[in-house]
């Protein structure tokens, strides 16, 4: 009898593990399928013209250059505001802040920033940057909105990277007569840099793919020229994909899939760069 119950347990375990394997496969395989599908459907649209020309015929022909350039500018603008602020905030939390109630409120605020729906960021950006500060729908307003949305990602990743630097490094620097800021700038930051960079790129990747926050802060439906200043509105890849897949009738599928492919290439390219930086830094690290 005992033996029987033992093999019963083994059977349950085997069934259970098979079920879990199946669940994981059903979760992961569609991801691969989605990416492969967009690549195969979008590849025929790829041409020099598609990547470097203005849209024509109500966006049904020509290229998507203004959307590519717009997303590049928006990502750059987001980086300009969110990277220095995010890293500085991470330095504060990791190197200066004491564990008291105020620090706890900062942490709760960061968690909340990370959880606010992207469309609410859009409303906020419109209320503050577009209307109150009179930036208008512009690259500036959209970048600032995206920056605040990206901030929690950059802060958390950078803080983690800073905290991973062994305490002994700081102790040695201080004991050699280095000041606190010298220690951070010359010792801690360089050691944490790959981790920070990974976090920054992952944060910007998210910003590059977002649509809702730029809907009312800087995205233009159709603008067949390149933006000339930060106060211009701009086309952007995610918003362009939304427009051509829902708002424009008789849109050729090839252009839709092509736009989707360029967008995920942009985003996944950043993802791959981040992964490479992370794994190379891990291999080189001596602590």
């Amino acid at each position, binding site marked *: 009898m005992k033996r029987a119950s033992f093999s019963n347990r083994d059977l349950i375990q085997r069934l259970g593990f098979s079920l879990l394997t199946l669940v994981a496969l059903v979760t*992961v395989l569609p991801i691969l399928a*989605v990416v492969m599908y967009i690549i195969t459907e979008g590849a025929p649209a790829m041409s020099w013209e598609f990547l470097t020309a203005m849209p024509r015929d109500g966006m049904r022909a020509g290229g998507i250059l203004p959307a590519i350039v717009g997303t590049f500018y928006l990502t750059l603008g987001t980086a300009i505001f969110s990277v220095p602020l995010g890293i500085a905030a991470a330095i504060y939390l990791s190197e200066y802040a004491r564990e008291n109630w105020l620090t706890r409120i900062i942490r709760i605020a960061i968690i909340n920033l990370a959880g606010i729906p992207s469309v609410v960021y859009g409303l906020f950006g419109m209320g503050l940057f577009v209307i109150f500060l009179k930036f208008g729908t512009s690259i500036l307003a959209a970048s600032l909105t995206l920056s605040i949305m990206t901030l929690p990602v950059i802060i958390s990743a950078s803080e983690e990277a800073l905290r991973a630097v062994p305490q002994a490094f700081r102790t040695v620097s201080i004991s050699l007569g280095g*000041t606190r800021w010298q220690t951070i700038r010359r010792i801690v930051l360089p050691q944490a840099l790959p981790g920070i960079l990974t976090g920054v790129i992952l944060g910007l990747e998210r910003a590059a793919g*977002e649509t809702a926050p730029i*809907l009312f802060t800087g995205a233009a439906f159709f603008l067949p020229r390149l933006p000339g200043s930060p106060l211009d509105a701009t086309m952007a890849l995610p918003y362009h994909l939304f427009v051509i897949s829902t708002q424009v009738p008789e849109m050729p599928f090839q252009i839709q899939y092509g736009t989707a492919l360029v967008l995920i290439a942009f985003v996944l390219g950043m993802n791959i760069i981040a992964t490479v930086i992370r794994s190379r830094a891990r291999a080189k690290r001596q602590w």
Partner: protein
Amino acid sequence: MEPKKLNWQEFFIPRLIKASGYSAILFVALIFFFLLREGLPALGEVKLGDLFSERWYPIESHFGVLPLITGSLIITVGAMLVALPFGIGTAIFMAEVAPRWMREILKPLVELLGGLPSVVLGFLGILVLSPFLRVFLDLPTGLTALAGALLLGGIAVPTIVSIAEDALDAVPYSYREAAWAMGATRWQTIWRVTLPAARSGVLTAVMLGIGRTIGETMAVMMVTGNAPVLALALTSIFHPVRTMTATIAAEMGEVASGSVHYHVLFFIGLVLFIISLIVNVAASSVVFKSKKRAERVLS
């Protein structure tokens, strides 16, 4: 000259860093303030009974938000029915069952899904998922709450998997060894030891997954058919619905700044903000509490 420059740096830079540290609080406060400023007037302009009625038809000044709230609810519940078993199952598989090499493959793939812009998933939802649902379930249109729930389930999965897997990973290995030494199988250990030990982290994963689902905008707007009808029956899942987020995204571009419609949309944004505030404070307090318990146990 060098020391003087140093003094200058040592004086200003820490203050600048400190200010940056506090900026997160400032931004949350600013967001709250602007939502209140633009959203609260709605309460004066629309009667409370009308605001919580079942008719959303802004052109004729009907601003009943109930259809939008039920739309968000039905899609969130549907998405969780998909995302919880698959997300937590995948997390358990990765943390407890899969060999190391498989884990190294699965983790980046799940992160890949997390990185895909929601507009791309919405786009595939329009072109692939909803035609499939229309034919497969013989519906008049595939753009339904079901399509939204399926897509959102997929969008919530990476959040749930990564947090739940971290939580399972954080359970000390000795717990498992103790269970095995007592004769438990690995399967029994997972359900009776590891998972209960990781429950606060798994709960956090679930809550943040729900938060992510309620706040999702683009994918939902693209595939749910955008019909603001009250979704109370179970069969509503097969009909078009419209969520709070999609309503803001679809209509804000066309309203005059300062109009009643504008204020009501900001009011919906305020409601979403408060929901996410509650979800996130609850999720983080679970984490803080469990940390405290761990500290107590260890000291």
